[in-house]
């Protein structure tokens, strides 16, 4: 049980022996020269291009300088304006990524550092290094030349739900489901990415509700319970996002693009019907139930409005089950995976062949805007956007 191979001893710079403790200069030299055995220098990779902007930093495509020439994605941990050191969000993401090892979850290879020198005041910058994925779903959907067959759509959704089933089983909430965070390799393997907002959840004990922040999930993919101020939410928040993404597989653009939280709720009501205690027992107890304007008398039109796009009745039915207002009625990942949609012809089929026709990487970040530029990075963290004066928005409900 005891150590068979202890970590190798680091080589140490020679130190002065005259003083009991190092002076500043000696310490700086020590930090500069210390060869951290577990944390390689980021210079082992060569940056190729910037491919995105994560929750806490930029993302680059890079190539290993060693013989493998392997491509990786490097996500920079932004620490410049951090008063409290290494961001707790990055710590969470790392902890969660170290825990999650699954075919349909992005794989964290290692964490690299830049060398500490006088130029960075002896403070390294850190990069999370991931296996490189060629595309993200938002990038693919914005390219008209990329056509998904029904079997391929099923494969995408099946992998997405498999990933969600796995992370939820491990008591992790993703909390930022959106097409841009769904990566797809050139072989057609789907990977859930960006766990920058993810957190562990617990099943609330009676009388002791969880108090999570509800300022999560990009607005267009945010479920009604979060918009109504729920702080004791769970896996259904990700399932709503899965429903939005599934619809987007056919509509090719986010189905509810509200510019504000209020507008988003209205769009949701127009598609899924009014939020009433009848269809959603307990909704009246949510913090913002009486503070938000909720359209009354709206009928549920999910199937009706999506049918022209989706056509496949099983697909429509599954969408209907995922886009349930009441989180308790929303399908969980396991139930969704057992839905007839995945078990009827055409069966889910591999994406590899279809993707082989496309040799260029497709990322939302690199794609021409598929919606007004100032909306592209509309994010949960941003203050609620004011309705623009020029009214350049289209409140689309499909």
């Amino acid at each position, binding site marked *: 049980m*005891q150590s068979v191979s202890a970590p190798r001893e680091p080589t*140490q710079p020679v130190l002065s022996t005259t003083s009991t403790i190092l*002076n500043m200069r000696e310490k700086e030299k020590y930090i500069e020269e210390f060869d951290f055995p577990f944390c390689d220098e980021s210079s082992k990779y060569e940056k190729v291009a910037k491919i995105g902007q994560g929750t806490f930093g930029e993302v680059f495509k890079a190539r290993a300088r060693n013989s493998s020439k392997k491509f990786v994605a490097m996500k920079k941990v932004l620490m410049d304006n951090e008063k409290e050191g290494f961001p707790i969000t990055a710590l969470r993401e790392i902890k969660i990524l*170290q*825990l999650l090892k699954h075919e349909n979850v992005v794989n964290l290879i290692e964490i690299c550092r830049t060398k500490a020198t006088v130029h960075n005041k002896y403070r390294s910058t850190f990069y999370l290094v991931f296996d490189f994925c060629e595309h993200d779903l938002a990038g693919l959907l914005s390219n008209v030349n990329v056509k998904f067959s029904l079997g391929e759509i099923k494969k995408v959704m099946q992998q997405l739900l498999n990933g969600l089933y796995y992370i939820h089983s491990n008591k992790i909430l993703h909390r930022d489901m959106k097409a841009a965070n769904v990566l797809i390799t050139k072989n057609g393997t789907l990977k859930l990415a960006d766990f920058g907002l993810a957190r562990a959840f617990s099943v609330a004990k009676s009388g002791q509700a969880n108090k999570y922040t509800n300022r999560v999930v990009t607005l267009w993919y945010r479920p009604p319970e979060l918009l109504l101020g729920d702080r004791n939410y769970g896996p259904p928040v990700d399932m709503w996002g899965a429903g939005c993404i599934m619809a987007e597989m056919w*509509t090719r653009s986010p189905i509810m693009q509200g510019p504000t939280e209020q507008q988003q709720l209205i769009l949701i009501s127009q598609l899924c019907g009014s939020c009433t205690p009848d269809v959603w027992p307990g909704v009246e107890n949510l913090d913002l139930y009486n503070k938000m304007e909720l359209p009354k008398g709206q009928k549920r039109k999910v199937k009706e409005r999506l049918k022209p796009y989706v056509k496949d009745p099983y697909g429509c039915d599954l969408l209907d089950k995922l886009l349930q207002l009441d989180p308790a009625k929303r399908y969980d990942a*396991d139930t969704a995976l057992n839905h007839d949609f995945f078990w009827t012809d055409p069966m889910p089929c591999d994406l590899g062949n279809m993707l082989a026709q496309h040799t260029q990487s497709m990322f939302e970040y690199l*794609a021409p805007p598929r919606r007004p530029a100032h909306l592209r990075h509309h994010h949960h963290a941003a203050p609620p956007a004011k309705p623009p004066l020029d009214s350049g928005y289209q409140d689309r409900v*499909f």
Partner: protein
Amino acid sequence: MPYWYYDKKDLLNTPSFRDGINNDAENRYRKEGARFIIDTGSKMDLGYNTVATGVVYFHRFYMFHSFRTFPRYITACCCLFLAGKVEETPKKCKDIIKVAKSLLTELKFASFGENPKEEVMTLERILLQTIKFDFQVEHPYGYLLKYAKCLKGDKTKLQKMVQMAWTFVNDSLCTTLCLQWEPEVIAVALMFLAGKLSKFEVADWNGRQPKHKVWWDMFVEDITTELLEDICHQVLDLYSPQTQASGNDSPPSVPQPPKNEKKPPSVTPPASVSPVAVTTATKPVVTPIKNGGEVKIEPPKVGITEPIRYTYPFTPIPHYPPVYTAPPPTIPPPPRLPLVPPPMVYPDPPPAPNRFPPVNVPPPNYFTPLPNRGPPPGPPPRPYYPPP
């Protein structure tokens, strides 16, 4: 892959040792650093988990760096700062420093340098790289309670035994045990010790199988009596007078003042003359049991056959506040938020195909074709990728 467990010989040949610090001195620095994390954490109402995580980081850090390079108290603060964030009980850096300052002599606090917060920030990056971003640390506490739940016997006695074992686990943080053995093994050993000392005989336990000779066979395989005794002695050695008398060989805790600063030399006398250093060092490190005054603790008479080479503190000195010391009042403990996402005990979802044969039912007629409807609306207008 880093492996955070070391042989005894590795623990003797540490960076500090190679840097001219003898093993006894290093062990004392480790003990003082760990104790300081415990005290600072308790004073800030941090839970036992956060405190223990900070201490483990501290011990791991000094398997790669020397105490001469990095003075222990600021490293300790940095470990606690990081542990707070990792365990979702974050404390502001400046608040930790404030508490640290109140607990340390001016002399010792001088090692924090001119700008303590900046020092901690720089140190944090070194700490992160050193511990390989390996944040998730398990501690014996959880196992202790899990094991205790299975044991049958007098409830009150069991409670006392667990309480004592809990205190031993607290104190074990001051040793390098977390660098030698998994938390499960430490939990078993210290429950074994507490059982002996509190005379709690484990006669039977839930889940017992014929192959189990002793209760811990159920949880950890191949634990020998020698191993248990070795672990117990490492903890008990904390209470022996030799290891406690550390007053006159105090560690280097004062950095050289920066060259540009002119401090009168009298401000920084050698740490050895600090009266506080002496008093803290000679304080017994253990608080036997809170609320347990009526239990008379006697040295073990069975099992440990070696001559007794430790003294058990007979005067209980309440040393740290109940937040940290007292084990939870009942078993199980007050459930802390599961900071640690549970291990992957769930099987992967079954592979999609072959689960059951594809159903060949004609699609249900959810919608009858609407003859009067026009063509479905096309996708919204928007720019696309230019065709290649």
